[in-house]
């Protein structure tokens, strides 16, 4: 198999095939050691690969430590003089793009956006609040307090359209996923899964502990971009009352 390890003093980067029409650029090996720094580096790599506009590249996505690059091998083959070494050609272009010195333009991505998300933590929306409190050995009020004073970053958008995986959860609040996932979770549900918190954008099954709900719509296919949050965004939660929740909906 193909495996390229570059021992650059800044980025020990690995580029690995993800089938014949995609590849993964592993920018860093670990995430939890330095989430903020890792995410910034991954975002920078994402932006640089995008700006390089490499022929045949269809779409990019990022998650925690890596950027994935989806491409059409037929178009790539037309652009290279060595179609039998498609992957190596792409990997070389990607390395050059990521290494590529100063960023050509100050784009919206270069400084992360800050997004505030109103959340109603009323018991009706928080079937697992008591469980999370018990697990943390604190009161439910303290759980809410810790959760909404935290500063988070979207480390990845995925699993289902618009689902933000938020890093930065207070260590105390980390709670294992439910043994038996729920068959149906209402859209807007705010949950804790392991050391992360997130929001279910769509009615879907899921195993996270639910502690609140936001009236905001996280995914709207008729908009471009279709999601409220993007990878890299800074996120804060703000407590709202049940009445405020209802008035948002109107």
């Amino acid at each position: 198999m193909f495996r390229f390890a570059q021992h650059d003093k800044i980025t020990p980067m690995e580029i690995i095939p993800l089938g014949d029409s995609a590849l993964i650029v592993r920018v860093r090996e670990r995430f939890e050691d330095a989430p903020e720094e890792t995410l910034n580096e991954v975002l920078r790599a994402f932006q640089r690969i995008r700006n390089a506009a490499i022929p045949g590249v269809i779409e990019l996505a990022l998650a925690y430590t890596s950027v994935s690059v989806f491409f059409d091998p037929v178009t790539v083959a037309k652009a290279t003089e060595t179609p039998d070494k498609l992957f190596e050609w792409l990997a070389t272009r990607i390395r050059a793009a990521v290494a590529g010195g100063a960023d050509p333009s100050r784009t919206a991505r270069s400084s992360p956006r800050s997004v505030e998300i109103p959340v109603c933590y009323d018991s009706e929306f928080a079937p697992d609040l008591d469980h999370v409190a018990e697990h943390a050995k604190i009161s439910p009020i303290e759980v809410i307090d810790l959760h909404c004073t935290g500063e988070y970053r979207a480390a990845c958008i995925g699993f289902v359209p618009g689902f933000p995986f938020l890093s930065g959860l207070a260590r105390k609040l980390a709670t294992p996923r439910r043994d038996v996932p729920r068959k149906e979770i209402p859209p807007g549900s705010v949950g804790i899964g392991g050391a992360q918190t997130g929001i279910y954008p769509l009615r879907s099954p899921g195993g996270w502990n639910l502690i609140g709900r936001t009236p905001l719509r996280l995914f709207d296919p008729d908009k471009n971009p279709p999601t409220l949050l993007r990878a890299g965004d800074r996120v804060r939660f703000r407590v709202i009352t049940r009445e405020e929740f209802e008035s948002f909906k109107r």
Partner: protein
Amino acid sequence: MGFREFGVSSGGTLDSFGLRVTNLLVGNDEGAAGLEITLGGLQSRFENDRVVAWCGGEFDVQIASTPLPACHAAHVRAGERLKFGWPQIGCRAWLAVSGGIDVPSTLGSRSTDLRAQFGGFEGRTLRDGDQLPLGKFRQLQTAATERISTWTAPHDWTSPAKRDPMLRFIPGADWNRFNAPTLRRLTSEAFAVSPDSDRMGVRLDGSKLERMDNVDLISEAVAPGTIQVPPSGKPILLLGDCQTIGGYPKIGHVITVDFGVAAQLRAGDHARFSEVSLADAHRLLLEREREFQRFRVGISLQSS
């Protein structure tokens, strides 16, 4: 550009190549929207004259009461019915209609995302009584003279379904996390297709694939074709509607030219896997594309 960075999968037919071929047969652009028919049972009536073609599993298809074999363009007259029976082999068929299915485009695509319930026709599977809008019909000159054209496409493009197929794969990023006996089992044993398979993935049952480590992996991208191995040791082959990221180890990836075969797997079938190199996967794909371009030229000569 796609929307994968927002968690939206590429969608579309599970065998996009098959639909490209059938689209050409009916005079459409290769990217026109068609129908994916799972396990047959579709009956449709046309309001005006159209040219149709289909490909996929071994279905019994009839126009009025005339059998229509896979990948032959056929003329359907206004009021006539097109019927798909239960497939003998495979589970999916793709139907192209001249003019294409004219549903609105959402996020740059006419395909349906069943999980997120958007796109296509009201973001859902079709039901009895639905009326589908069709695009402008481009009259094919050959269609006027023949009910069913004799012209067709290569058999392995149009009828890829097999009960016990061999799927070619390249090793995945986590190949080395599995022990030697497991890797031997993957390439020597048959895996039974489980009934709880869908457009997201084919669940496979066979001897347990065992990892040597139990390190928690950081979630990263997965793609159609990825073979992931959850803790149960029973592999899942991801298909077109798969989620965008995953945290299970990736033991391998089925190559693109075999997606048409993978898309036909149904409960009771048995899949085997054989390893190829990434360079071979690309070579096979580029060869097929060259043949497809020759086929396109052939079609345009036929209908001019």
